[in-house]
């Protein structure tokens, strides 16, 4: 009986794993010719999984009823919120892929399958209630991601990106595992709830070591400084649809996982991790901003932009309040839309031969021949910079508000000051598009799927997005309440 209930709770993961296996078989039979069909089916599987995950969020599920498999997995509203974002992002990176890969005749049926497995792994990550579950989900996602990064295996940059990601990912996994074993050693359990109980009193040095190592491993996944070094190289080298995926879904998963770990497992020792998170947040903001300024490749620029944004999201975590968690989730939702929109726009930048355009100098004067695209990209840049009335401002506002209400005025002030530096490189892109002599490089036609996706993202981040603040905030509040549920 209990086993059946557990299975019902992990229904989205079951759907994804079963359809992943089935599509893998189909891919083996159908070959690369079937890749479009498999992509469509994979998107359908993600949509289905999403429908199965949604009720938990709408009901605001929390407490003991959400625990499955003897407390290994926790399928509450918080997990559901993250999962929905992950599935959406994964589906988006599936939709944009065919047009990109088919041009270089590299569209393989494995791509949607790998994305599905990665999405399943991320689903497990965000519903983990135990260190072991955490690690399984993380590695499931990571292994798929390493392969995806090197997906264009004949392309040197792609192969290099895959290898770098793998080696550094392995190092990070090492940190994580070492930290987990230390924690287990001092807490005597791998269950988050158990660790929480064991660390309720004074924290031993060993457990503190464990915490730092675990956080370092997770910081690698969210590409927070100083564990961000892989990000620019991998984002640049990986095929753009894969980069779209990396920049969106795993960020959500890893961030949600980090929140889960620090609140559920180390929630009794807030002061132990709060300062680390704060410093990591500030370093990420500054490194992201400074790094982005020197870039002339727009994908690298987006990589630093993601580091910068992670810093802002971590400010919400540093607040260590339910309000902060809610703000982070709203920020994450907006961030996913901005990132996907940004990368879709980059995918649409092609020269006359259809070759992707990645150099910022090459989009000079884009506004003169691709007006709509230029407007969308400009909106995304303004939104990333957090300039009102675009939606990107709202996320930053909520995060800073949470920090201020938690009494962290200096942190918020420094963050706001640093976001000014960030505005420079975002606005530089706009300036190049609108005020520089037209280079007439990016003139290629765009795929309709790209156009549709960009339109959706652009509308979401436009001032119209503010119509959703009530709904989105309500959902985020439910999720945050589930995270902070004390039963």
């Amino acid at each position, binding site marked *: 009986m209990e086993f059946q209930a557990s299975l019902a709770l992990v229904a989205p993961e079951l759907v994804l794993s079963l359809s992943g296996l089935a599509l893998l078989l189909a891919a083996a039979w159908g070959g690369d010719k079937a890749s479009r069909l498999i992509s469509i089916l994979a998107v359908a599987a993600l949509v289905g999984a999403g429908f199965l995950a949604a009720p938990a969020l709408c009901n605001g599920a929390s407490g003991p009823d959400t625990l499955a498999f003897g407390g290994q997995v926790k399928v509450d509203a918080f997990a559901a919120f993250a999962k929905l974002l992950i599935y959406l992002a994964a589906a988006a990176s599936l939709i944009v892929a065919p047009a990109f890969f088919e041009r270089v005749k590299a569209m393989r049926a494995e791509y949607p399958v790998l994305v599905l497995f990665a999405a399943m792994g991320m689903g497990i990550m965000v519903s983990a209630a135990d260190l072991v579950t955490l690690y399984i989900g993380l590695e499931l996602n990571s292994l798929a991601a390493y392969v995806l990064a090197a997906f264009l295996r004949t392309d040197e940059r792609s192969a290099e990106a895959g290898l770098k990601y793998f*080696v*550094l990912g392995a190092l990070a996994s090492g940190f994580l595992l070492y930290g987990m074993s230390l924690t287990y050693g001092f807490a005597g359990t791998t269950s988050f709830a158990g660790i929480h109980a064991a660390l309720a009193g004074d924290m031993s040095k060993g457990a503190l070591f464990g915490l730092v190592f675990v956080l*370092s491993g997770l910081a690698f996944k969210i590409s927070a400084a*100083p564990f961000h070094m892989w990000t620019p190289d991998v984002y640049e080298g990986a095929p753009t649809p894969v980069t779209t995926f990396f920049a969106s879904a795993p960020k959500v998963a890893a961030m949600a996982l980090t929140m889960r770990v620090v609140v559920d497992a180390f929630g009794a020792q807030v002061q132990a991790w709060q*300062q680390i998170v704060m410093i990591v947040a500030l370093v990420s903001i500054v490194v992201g901003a*400074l790094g982005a300024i*020197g870039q002339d490749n727009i994908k690298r620029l987006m990589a630093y932009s993601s580091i910068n944004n992670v810093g802002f999201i971590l400010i919400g975590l540093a607040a260590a309040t339910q309000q902060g968690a809610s703000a982070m989730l709203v920020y994450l939702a907006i961030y996913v839309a901005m990132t996907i929109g940004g990368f879709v726009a980059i995918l649409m930048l092609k020269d006359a031969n259809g070759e992707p355009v990645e150099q910022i100098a090459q989009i000079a004067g884009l506004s003169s021949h691709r007006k709509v695209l230029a407007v969308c990209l400009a909106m995304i840049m303004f939104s990333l910079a957090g300039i009102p009335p675009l939606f990107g401002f709202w996320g930053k506002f909520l995060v800073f508000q949470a920090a201020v209400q938690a009494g962290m005025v200096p942190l918020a002030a420094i963050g706001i000051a640093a976001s000014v530096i960030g505005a420079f490189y975002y606005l530089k892109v706009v300036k190049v598009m609108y005020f520089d002599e037209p280079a007439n490089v990016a003139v290629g036609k765009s795929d309709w799927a790209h156009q549709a996706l960009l339109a959706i993202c652009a509308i979401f981040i436009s001032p119209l997005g503010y119509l959703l603040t009530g709904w989105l905030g309500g959902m985020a509040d439910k999720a945050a309440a589930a995270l902070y549920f004390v039963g």
Partner: protein
Amino acid sequence: MHPILLIVFLPLLAAIIGGLGNRGLGNTVVKSLTTGALFASCGLSWMTFIPFLAGTAEASVVPVLTWVHSGTLTFDWALRVDALTAIMLVVITTVSALVHLYSWGYMAEDPDQPRFFAYLSLFTFAMLMLVTANNLVQMFFGWEGVGLASYLLIGFWFKKPSANAAAIKAFVVNRVGDLGFMLGIFGTYLVFQTTSIPEILAAAPGMSGASMTFLGMHLQTMDVLCILLFIGAMGKSAQLGLHTWLPDAMEGPTPVSALIHAATMVTAGVFMVCRLSPMFEAAPVALAMVTFVGAATCFFAATIGTTQWDIKRVIAYSTCSQLGYMFFAAGVGAYGAAMFHLFTHAFFKALLFLGAGSVIHAMHHEQDMRYYGGLRKHIPLTFWAMMAGTLAITGVGIADVFGFAGFYSKDAILEVAWARGTELSHFAFWMGTIAALLTSFYSWRLVFLTFFGKPRWDQSEHIQHAVHDDHGHAAHGHDDHAHHDAHGDGTAGYHPHESPVSMLIPLGVLSIGAIFAGLVFAPPFLQSEEFWGGAIYYNEALLHAMHGVPVWVKLAATVVMLIGVTTAWFAYIKDTSIPGKFVAQFRMLHAFLYNKWYFDELYNFLFVKPAFWLGRQLWMRGDVGLIDRFGPNGAAWVVARGTLAAKRVQSGYLYSYALVMLVGLVAAITWVML
């Protein structure tokens, strides 16, 4: 509708329509509109004034709009009409209307006529607001409004650097005075808890002797307030110390000099002191200061006037000097005499300026009297107008028979200064008497140099240009030099023409004023308490004592006037080598006077240079060196450096990436262990 509303707001309406319509309406429309408005305003003003003369009018206040109601601070837009205001109304609107008319001719060739006429009307409105103010704040509004219009009109020819510099100088020097005026208003509100002039004046006598503590010093409240207010008056009325802007203001078109820098705006300070006379009567130290500054200015400006060559500058220093008379008259308590001199002075000084403008017009913009001479026969009407003005300003007349305007007002001031009987008032009397001598000298010097003697026009560049242009058109072909020889009479072949009728009518009207204003208006201004109706502080005893002064005091002004005219005649008609010899003999004295007592140089050294130095320091060291360097530029530098560092760390090598991660981990562990 009360006529005062029309008097005040017609010029504003004309200014707004003319200024905004500008070229869209065209020269003639704007000129007709503004001039028409002013003549209407002028007619209504006389209709307001005459009942006061007849003693049938009562002082009244016409509310316009509520303005500020904030806590205990309350003041409204309202127009006060009493004898004092009525005098100013006729002075302002009459001179302004005539100046508008005069400008039709004088500015006929200017490309920006609508702007000029709109500014003139705007000025008139501001000046009317000043004199009708029922509270100090509205007075300040008018005060600043005339300052603005003065700035705009001095710099009317804004392409001329010297005009711009003069406009800025006038504005900045007036700011110094205005600061005093503002502090005075603030202080008055602080002490009286109101800005309403009638309430303040009613309460002022009771405050006599009250003291206040400021920066640890015990000060007489009324003295402090009145001195601050008087500093404002000094700025606006170009009194010694804050006078430097007035001569430079002559860069503006001559009608502007006549209207603003002779007849109206510069007398605002005198008006203010008279309006607030009950306050000043309660402040003996401030009154002494008014007397001293007035007497000193009166003398000082007259000395400079004797040496200047520019016809407008001579009249400008003369204005400065005459304002000094008005102030020391007020200082000794004869506010009626001060207002009377203001009234007569407005006519004859506007006349002199407009006459000078007519001469300049005839002489093709030449303003240097060294290049005039013998103009009497060429422009006879202008000559006779200037004669009327000169007779008026020098105070020609025989007691109880007839005198020109200045005779009545200036003699009254000198007599009352003696009659007051204090040491300071005697000082003022002597200063005023010497100044009367100098006035007579420089006024006649002006007339003799301009209208008598032989033409000296051939040395003037302006005239040469004019002649050259004429002959260029006529295609004669011989050069200038040969041309001069051909004539040999100093005229360079130039033929001055009398000004057009639009310029001559104002000269005629003002000449009548200069001749008869004294005779007609002396009785009410000087001897009728009923006429004033409490508008100013009326010192019955003092005016009584005025009639009892010794005969020699009564004759003093006439005697020195005769000495002045005789000296001028000897020096500039009889033997024209005398001035040269005098200058050679008293080189130092002449240089001192010719360079205006070195006030500009002194201020340049004391204020302008240090201000520039300070500004430069704040700019180069403070703004560029400190704020920019450590602010925006510094931040940009740090960011650029940081970007370079971030690029260098991002080497692309796996091992360095791994190292950074390990360093980060170690740093984090070290942090939590500490």
